[in-house]
């Protein structure tokens, strides 16, 4: 098991979860790796415990019913072999930060990915926001490329891909969230500005690395139609790109934000139709 203190020249990243076979994180069968930590604070976040990093307060250690968490040198140590995934630690955390984290080097994560070969065609790294750890991604993707796997990034678009061409050369594509097109609305949804996000959407599309854009549709929170249509117009010169329209669902959402209602199928169909009218063809409603 690795922890943050380990002596290594390899970059580290906090791995929250690895899904060995995933059908929903890009084309085909992929191993999906979820990193901890996010620089957005989306109201409808379905995994709010992946946003903050553990501050080692230790509250969860005594609550863990199977002693899968312990405190060594002021740091939480997580033992996945004992964990029964009961989520008690997540519920008692005052910081919304899962302590079930393994700090891994790219080679350590790759050992886990290798087990799925030849059943997978590639990997997708998601989060949290995985681009908070670009050196780790660079290392991991380089190893995956050597093994013939495709590499996708799931990102909120705050990372400046344009200034790190070496990461893009080992990245097959980015799946980018457009949370809201309008800057004020984006601020409401995520607590952050979106100038960089829209810039990245255009940049990635222009270099052929934008695999997919997606929007979680929460009509009560922002103007979904407007976001979809304006994103559609913005990226029209670079088609074909897939647009994934994801219906809001309350599962996992923090209580204070779980009152939103899911949009109707008809509403999502109308959004899709608006995209089709301006030339989009690959539209998926989930």
């Amino acid at each position, binding site marked *: 098991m690795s922890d943050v203190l380990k002596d290594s020249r390899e970059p580290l990243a906090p791995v929250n979860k690895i899904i*060995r*076979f995933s*059908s*929903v994180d890009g*084309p*085909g*069968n992929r191993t999906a790796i979820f990193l901890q930590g996010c620089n957005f604070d989306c109201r409808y976040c379905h995994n709010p415990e992946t946003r903050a990093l553990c501050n080692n307060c230790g509250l969860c250690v005594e609550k863990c019913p199977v002693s899968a968490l312990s405190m060594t040198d002021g740091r939480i140590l997580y033992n996945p072999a004992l964990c029964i995934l009961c989520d008690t630690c997540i519920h008692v955390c005052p910081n919304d930060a899962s302590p079930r984290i393994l700090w891994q080097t790219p080679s350590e994560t790759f050992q886990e990915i290798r*087990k*799925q*070969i*030849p*059943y*997978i*065609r590639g990997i997708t790294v998601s989060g949290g926001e995985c681009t908070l750890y670009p050196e780790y991604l660079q290392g991991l993707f380089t190893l995956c490329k050597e093994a013939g796997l495709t590499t996708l990034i799931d990102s909120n678009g705050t990372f400046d891909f344009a200034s790190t061409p070496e990461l893009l050369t080992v990245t097959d594509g980015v799946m980018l969230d457009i949370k809201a097109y309008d800057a004020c609305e984006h601020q409401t949804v995520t607590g952050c500005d979106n100038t960089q996000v829209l810039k990245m959407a255009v940049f990635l599309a222009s270099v052929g690395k934008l695999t997919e854009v997606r929007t979680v549709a929460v009509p009560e929170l922002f103007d979904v139609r407007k976001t979809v249509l304006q994103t559609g117009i913005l990226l029209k010169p670079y088609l074909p790109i897939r647009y994934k329209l994801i219906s809001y669902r309350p599962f996992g959402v923090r209580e204070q934000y779980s009152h939103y209602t899911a949009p109707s199928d008809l509403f999502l169909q109308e959004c899709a139709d608006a995209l089709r009218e301006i030339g989009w063809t690959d539209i998926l409603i*989930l």
Partner: protein
Amino acid sequence: MREITMEHVNQIRKDILETIKSPVLTHEQKVATMAGEADSLLEVLDLPEGLDELLNRPIDTQCICDLFEGHAPVRPRYIIPDYAKFMKEGSRFLQLDPPQDIYEAINSLLIFYKHVPSITNFPVYLGSLDELLDPFLEGVDDVTAKKLLKLFFIHIDRTVLDSFSHANLGPVETRAGRLILEVESELEQAVPNITLKYDPDLTSDDFALKAVQTSLHSAKPSFANHRMFRSELGEDYVIASCYNGLKLGGGSYTLCRLILGNIAKRSSGITDFLENQLPYVMDIMARYMDERIRFEVEESGFFQNNFLAKEGFIHQDRFTAMFGMVGMAECVDLLMKKEGKSCRYGQNSEADDLGVKIMDAIYAFNEKHTNPYCQITSGHFLLHAQVGIAQDQGVTPGTRIPIGEEPEELLDHLKHCARFHKYFPSGTGDIFPIDTTVHKNPEFLLDIIKGAFRENLRYLSFYASDSDVIRITGYLVKRSEIAKLRSGSAVLQDTTALGLGATNNGHIEERKIR
């Protein structure tokens, strides 16, 4: 012929009368059942000593099972006619000239099917339908072609009343193949079973994805590792009945099965099992099969008189026999328990290693045993992972992991399969119900199939967890038909009753959804 007691005769008479009066059997099912009952009055086989106490036992101690083949085999168990020859030459006996167009081709096949016997009295192989029909579709528009294919498949489903009946597709994509998948997707029928012979070098992704989507609609086709089967059985192999690899123009004389869990019950531990009990039972089963084969070839007259043999649609020297086994899981768990260990098959590598060791022992035995009438498979039988029968309780099919004990990760399940599929050229397979609300991505399954076949898995089946047609153990049944039978109404297909038994005894509905 040996004498039998009057007591035995009277028991059979009672059974026959009960069959006649049954409220849930159709007329055809009654006739077939009565034929089996009459056959049990015969005693013509020269049985090996020791067989009786291994064969004629209640299901919880029986070590050898002959799967209802009866006392005097009147025909081989599985018959694989060369339909391509029939399409080219017609049949004198059936008074049919070679078909000239799609109408005649379909009509001829439907006639032929009614004259292909098997253990079930229905054909277990219906041909490589895409290859057979594709040439006749030239110049026929899609609408007409689909209408004809639809009628053809409805006719099969309503007259070939048993889902052990199997059609093949692929490996190469054809227009007929595509249309058949479309029609099957629309019909959602239990019969016929269908297999796509899949080879990523020969089968286009497009066609394979269409097959995946069809399988999530109507639980078929299944996917056979074409490269693997071809390397073992040659180019002219077919998939028949549940998932049995056999030679075109041949078939299987017989299929008997070792009930491994019950053989383990006779053993004091692993060593006694491997050195004494298993070899003893295997030897008796092999000699029993030899005797059944001898009777079929030398005495029954089938190969001398049946038109299939006389006109060359089948050849006796292309037949082999299937040496079957069930209940590896129960066998390993019990032997481990007898050694004082609690590790379980499918969940523990020591237990799985023992499973492999047992398979190696069965394989080695079969490599040594020879039969003069199995020339086509070098004088040996072919190993077969049998899928069980409706009456089985606490007997897991072949080398499968018991339902309810499947590994959490699909990956680990597949890795387990990879250790065992290679032993069974005449068939094995695993089944995975898929949650289609989660997996809307057919490429996901195709990637898994591709990976699995690279790892030498042999045969995979999928169905949507909410589908009406589901795969029971190797054959297909409609949930709605099971419900009908459960409520006491007669149903058209024989396999529905087997499906009802297996869902009650085999917990089919509790299979882990992926």
